[in-house]
């Protein structure tokens, strides 16, 4: 027997429902559980409350319900009827589902949080490590930078002085040659030689410092490294001596590299000397060349910025005592040396380092104590279209002379006096100016100046480059030769000369000056 509401919910009429048992209106699972659990419960307990079941409507649709049932017995204990109350549980079932879902979500979130917590410590630790590594790398490069600034400044000043000294000694040499030979002149000559060598060594020292400070004026060209190494093979063999075996392994199809050839030679000689010193009891020195590709992954792992790309690699390997880890970390610092006092200035490797950096290259040392060391130099590959530089003949003796008019612009009085006197000795007519303003005034007055020889660094706001530009406005065909001991300036960008600019580095010898001046005037 069913009431109207129940009929409305289920879609059955009273007639349909008459005589049928309640459980027939349930879904199959509901019916089974009803038969096995709820009906027994009703029989034993006389009632059950709030059992969640699903009715099946006439349409076949499911309707979630909550069911209460009560058994009514007569005085004999016989069941008279069972009163069943059905509550529409659609909403409640929905809430239950949502609640369960929310509970699951919360559990998942909690789980995730726990895992996060567990890994958090580890992540913080690794972040810290990375941060510290980055800071260490920064400190290192800042240190090198600071040292560079210091040494560069000192070296520049030294260069000016050395130019004067060497110039003076040069002049002495010329005078002495002109005198009749006597024991006194011979003695004077010897003294002059010694002083000259001392000054030369000092000049080398300052140029090394400048190299480290990356303030050399480099003259990079496309070079065939194999050829360059062949060219100095004899020199290397002599340098390392007989007790060390020497081998050159040249890579086939080697690309051309971009570098200043003279400085590259210097670097290789430097490394060979180090190698020799690491093998006091003999060993083997190997120089290898090959093409190399430095990829993103590799350059990312470095402390200093290196562009990924194609490079020419030169490896200098020895079988010496090797370098320990601690030393390895300081090995490029200037004045750091493992040699005894007097046996090395500690500038060699720092010079090589500076040269590589300034050449947009990369240097890497691999070493194992007791086994040996390999120093790998990477130079950028030259644009294949560039023709390779042919090393010219070594400088011939003698000076080049001339009679043209040269304007010398130099703010350092001593140096200006020196350059002027040297050029006059070579036969040129020389005009002087201590700054750009004076130089321009001079040029306004006269139209016959052939060449302007100026320091790049000038006082009072106009540097050498600006001066030449302005000068050429007055005299378009004016030739220019720059000199500098210090490359932080307008004509040298990142150590590379602007094309079409001629540069004579300080300190310069008379021979170098005479040659360069002649070259330019002859163009």
């Amino acid at each position, binding site marked *: 027997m069913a009431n109207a509401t129940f009929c409305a919910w289920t879609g059955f009429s009273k007639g349909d429902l008459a005589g049928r048992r309640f459980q027939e209106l349930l*879904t*199959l699972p509901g019916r089974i*559980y009803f038969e096995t659990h709820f009906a*027994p*419960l009703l*029989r034993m307990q*006389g009632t059950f409350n709030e059992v969640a079941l699903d009715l099946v409507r006439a349409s076949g649709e499911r309707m979630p319900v909550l069911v209460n049932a009560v058994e009514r017995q007569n005085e004999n204990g016989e069941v008279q009827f069972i009163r069943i109350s059905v509550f529409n*549980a659609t909403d409640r079932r929905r809430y*239950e589902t949502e609640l369960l879902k929310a509970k699951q979500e919360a559990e998942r979130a909690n789980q995730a949080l726990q895992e996060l917590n567990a890994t958090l410590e580890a992540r913080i630790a690794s972040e810290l490590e990375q941060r510290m590594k980055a800071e260490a790398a920064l400190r290192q490069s800042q240190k090198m930078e600071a040292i560079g600034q210091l040494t560069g400044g000192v070296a520049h000043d030294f260069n000016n002085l050395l130019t004067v000294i060497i110039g003076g000694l040069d002049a002495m040499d010329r005078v002495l040659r002109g005198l009749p030979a006597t024991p006194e002149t011979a003695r004077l000559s010897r003294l002059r030689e010694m002083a000259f060598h001392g000054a030369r060594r000092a000049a080398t020292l300052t140029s090394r410092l400048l190299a480290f400070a990356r303030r050399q004026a480099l003259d990079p060209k496309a070079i065939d490294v194999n050829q360059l190494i062949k060219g100095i093979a004899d020199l290397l063999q002599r340098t390392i001596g007989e007790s060390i075996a020497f081998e050159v392994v040249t890579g086939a199809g080697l690309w051309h590299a971009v570098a200043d050839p003279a400085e590259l030679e210097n670097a290789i000689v430097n490394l060979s000397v180090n190698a020799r010193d690491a093998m006091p009891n003999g060993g083997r020195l190997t120089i290898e060349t090959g093409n190399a590709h430095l990829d993103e992954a590799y350059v990312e792992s470095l402390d200093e910025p290196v562009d990924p790309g194609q490079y020419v690699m030169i490896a200098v390997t020895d079988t010496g005592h090797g370098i320990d880890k601690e030393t390895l970390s300081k090995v490029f610092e200037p004045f750091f040396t493992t040699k005894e006092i007097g046996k090395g200035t500690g500038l060699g490797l720092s010079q090589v380092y500076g040269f590589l950096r300034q050449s947009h290259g990369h240097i890497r040392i691999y070493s194992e104590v007791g086994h040996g060391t390999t120093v790998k130099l990477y130079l950028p590959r030259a644009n294949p279209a560039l023709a390779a530089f042919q090393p010219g003949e070594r400088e011939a003796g003698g000076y080049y002379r001339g009679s043209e008019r040269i304007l010398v612009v130099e703010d350092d009085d001593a140096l200006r006096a020196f350059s002027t006197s040297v050029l006059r000795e070579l036969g040129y007519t020389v005009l002087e100016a201590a700054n750009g303003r004076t130089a321009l005034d001079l040029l306004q007055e006269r139209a016959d100046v052939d060449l302007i020889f100026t320091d790049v660094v000038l006082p009072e706001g106009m540097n050498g480059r600006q001066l030449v530009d302005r000068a050429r406005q007055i005299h378009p065909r004016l030739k220019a030769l720059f000199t500098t001991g210090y490359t932080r300036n307008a004509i040298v960008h990142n150590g590379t000369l602007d094309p079409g600019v001629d540069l004579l580095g300080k300190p310069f010898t008379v021979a170098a000056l005479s040659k360069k001046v002649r070259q330019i005037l002859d163009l």
Partner: protein
Amino acid sequence: MSILARNNVVVSGSGSRPMIFAHGFGCDQNMWRLVAPAFEQEFRTVLFDHVGAGRSDLSAYDRTKYSHLGGYADDVIEICTDLALERPIFVGHSVSSMIGVLAANKCPELFEALILVGPSPRYIDDEGYRGGFSSQQIEELLEFLESNHMGWSTAMAPAIMGNSDRPELAEELTNSFCRTDPEIARHFARTTFTSDNRADLGKVGTPSLILQCSDDVIAPVCVGEFVHAKMPDSRLVVMQATGHCPNLSAPEETIEAIRSFVH
């Protein structure tokens, strides 16, 4: 823990012949409350709860052991051995019919007779066999408990009695009927409704009585007939009682049927 405590074994009766009652799927030994007392004079009645049901020791529930009916059969054998029962009569309802069959096959001389109330050797239809359910329906059944989680817990939780019509039940029901852990109930349902013991029927040598209800959706008449056909020494009685639990819904008819058989 002792076997008797594990299965909440209750021994009553003053007779000498032992009769052991096994409840089936759903509830616990309380299912026999209207039938077992009728035999207490003549018999020594033994009632117990399967592990996971009623007041059995839930911590003894081993998923692997009870993932097949043989696990339950082993427990029955253990109870009989522990109590040193001599050739008891085994009365099994629903799935416990098959549990009895398995126990009898394992220990052929164990029981004097088997009384199977609403038995089914396999619930899922098979080729040439009608169990009454498709496998999809059984899956639905097994999901039912899951989706009705809250409704189930409420219903199956201890019911506080307050029924003035049946005051005699008030005290007994402070501990639950049908108390069961939903997890275990789920697993027991799976074990029961995916069982297949058709091959075990033919081996039973013990004389057996099959009590089949009319209109039992869980163990339909054709299944009862199948069981009777397969068991060599069996008798089939189709009762007037409907539904799956005649021991509760028609206790007199049930008692009568059993009594006729055991005399």
